[in-house]
């Protein structure tokens, strides 16, 4: 199965795949240009996988972009 990823999210594909690999240990994930390619899962999993890839990309992006806010919160709360 192949899943297209928008240009703004493709940089988060590797991290998303790392997480999906242990959520779906029976599958093999790879990334090529603007696509995530999945083998080893049945077509019946497509809807679920589409959602989880999208969520995974979003989560990776949110985490990446919010590191500075998390650092700020910890720094401000624990500074003495």
């Amino acid at each position, binding site marked *: 199965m192949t899943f297209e990823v928008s240009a703004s999210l493709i940089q988060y594909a590797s991290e998303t795949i790392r997480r999906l690999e242990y959520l779906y240990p029976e599958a093999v994930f790879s990334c090529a240009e603007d696509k995530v390619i999945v083998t080893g899962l049945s077509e019946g999993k497509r809807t679920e996988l589409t959602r989880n890839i999208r969520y995974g990309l979003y989560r990776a992006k949110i985490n990446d972009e*919010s590191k500075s806010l998390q650092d700020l*919160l910890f720094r401000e709360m624990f500074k003495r």
Partner: protein
Amino acid sequence: MNVWPLRFTDTNDGELLFTDYAGGYFRSTQEFLDRYATGELTTSDQNFLSDRGHAFEKVSDLSFIGFASRWSGRLNANKDINYIILVPTLRCNLSCDYCQVSRVNENAKGFDWDDKTLSAVLRLLEGFGTKEIKVEFQGGEPLLRLNMLREVRSFCRSHFETAQFVVCTNLQTVSKYAWDFLSDEDTHISTSLDGTFDVHQQQRTKDNTTTGTFRTNILKAIETKGVGNVSALPTIDPLSAPEPKILIQTFADLGLHSIFLRPINYQGFARKRYQFDQVNQFWSGYYRRFIDELIEYNATADEPFEEYYLTHILRRIIQGGHNNHVDLRNPNWLGQDYLVVDFNGVLYPTDEARMITRIGQLDLSIGNVHSGLDLSKLDVLNSDASNFFDPDCMNCAYQPYCGVDHIDDLSRYGRVDIPRHLTDHCQKHMSLFDLAFELLYSGDPKVHNSLAAWLNIPGYSPHLTPVHL
């Protein structure tokens, strides 16, 4: 505007629940998720997030300070010790099928504190820097060592400004002297009642006479101590659980209004007798049926009834804090505010750790009353005490309300680093948080009635359930 990071999870009706680090939450749509994640928030989105405290303009503005305060208010701060479980004996006068705490026969030798251990326990208590202490006497059956209980209680009353005592007793054999001991105001009774008296007999007391004695004693305890000073914990076999309605009625007939519904514990000698892998799904279904029945019961009852742990979860979601349950806190510091002293003077961070050690699975002792705490071992146990940086938890919408329980992980898997979503602790709590939010967002007035009682608020309010469309 800076939006605090939002985590999200599917709800059962196609929408999404969003939460922030500080436990703020709201429901919204897939379209909002797309806009948020791709940086295309509308003015309406921004106004909602700002109004609800999910965003700030600059460090030290009121929005930032408010958020930081809510976030820190949820943390389990490292506190001085204020709770201790004492096991003066492992001997017990019952032999329950699944004995949760390891026990030995009533006449066994060598399973009690000796005078030297008692003295060391009192020295340990003397060294605590706290003004308040809560002492829980466990066993075995602690009333078999009433003299030790007296010594400890007398010492604590004179040494601490405030001292509270809980005697965890099977209420099977209670002498006149034991009733005298239990009658004091600062002393509470915690006993077991396995749902109904029939089940209790099947699992614990075995015959009519013994069950009758227990029934007489629990009624006497409630009558003399008052219902607020007696709790009864059921241990439920998920494969033959009593009907929820009957269970609730049994407790209500005794005047009790709270029940901590627990399945047979995976730890302790129980693990040798039961097939735990098969029972989780039964338990989950049973628990939901029980809560449904509870909501029905409360709709017409004069006195509302609660399931302790669901109430605890709801309060952690709505109010934050509530760090008094050692299986659910973040960070979950071990050996800090809470200790267990076994019959041989060995110290443990939790009662579960004592059981795991007792069955020979893993030595989770952290010192003894004679030589003190093993700080290097405690450092190891506390090296990963929070869920902040766990690769699963950091993506979980329920992270602010949840916690870690490494003792449970060690017990079940022998390690603490398996993917979180595969752990029993995670699966159980995901299910509970799903249920809690399902109830919070329910439109059923009967659910609202129970929620108000459980949250101890005058009435249900739509403010509890923000939605952004």
